């Protein structure tokens, strides 16, 4: 059951990314590039995606997930150096190519060699992240 729910969730996510145009890097870079031909589509996608989630979070205040267990125990709102540094690094890559992790997966079957190279580089980055994260921790402790 948990696997079927994950498959359904991933399918809705993938369908939404394709229909919304978020697998098209020109639309993402068009949103980020305020000095170019600015494209507000991403704001509509974000707004549309936030609506069902607003309802979903309200429903988590009571009861339990359908498959049992408990709703996630979410981190306390602490702003640490990892959140900031990681988000800046991510944003730089996002601006450079116009792809983030979801669309990189969703466009894999039609993104050609470039899309595959991006995905493999992203997986490599993910595998280096724990080491890089600890180095950043040491750097932050020293300063």
């Amino acid at each position: 059951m948990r696997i079927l729910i994950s498959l359904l969730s991933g399918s809705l996510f993938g369908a939404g990314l394709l229909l919304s145009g978020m697998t098209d890097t020109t639309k993402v870079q068009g949103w980020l590039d305020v000095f170019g031909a600015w494209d507000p589509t991403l704001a509509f996608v974000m707004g549309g995606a936030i609506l069902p989630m607003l309802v979903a979070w309200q429903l988590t205040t009571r009861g339990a997930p359908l498959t049992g267990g408990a709703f996630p125990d979410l981190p306390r709102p602490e702003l640490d150096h990892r959140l900031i540094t990681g988000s800046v690094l991510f944003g730089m890559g996002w601006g450079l190519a116009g792809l983030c992790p979801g669309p990189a997966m969703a466009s894999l079957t039609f993104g050609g060699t470039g899309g595959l190279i991006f995905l493999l580089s992203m997986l490599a980055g993910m595998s280096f992240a724990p080491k890089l994260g600890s180095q950043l921790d040491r750097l932050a402790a020293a300063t």
Partner: protein
Amino acid sequence: MPMDWIWGLIGGLLIGTGGAVLLLGNGRVMGASGILGGLVDRSGWGTAAERAAFVIGVIATPLLMLQILGLEADTHLTSNWFAVIAAGLLVGAGTRIANGCTSGHGVCGISRFSLRGIVATVFYILAGGLTLVLFRHILGVI
């Protein structure tokens, strides 16, 4: 309202519904980088099957839709290989260090008014905008 905006809204609603299904069904936050990253660095191997099912859904559904509708899609990704590889490395490492990307911090974080989600989103959008200014408008390489 331009059609692109309407499709953005419809697609966005589907993305959010996917997040709601995962949260209410499995009690999990739908973050693309976390689901995939947990498979890469082995931290999520305890739930490997459901993570893999999510990834298969994300990859296969757009393909099925394009086949059924007889449409083609294009990512219009830059042909600058150096930029593609550098961007992939930055996105992969950055999202894991920040513990979230556009779906986790953006969609799932903002919708619960999470300070971390909002701050992360502000920083990655600003960094993305400045990177484009530098590499597109100043250096002209992408």
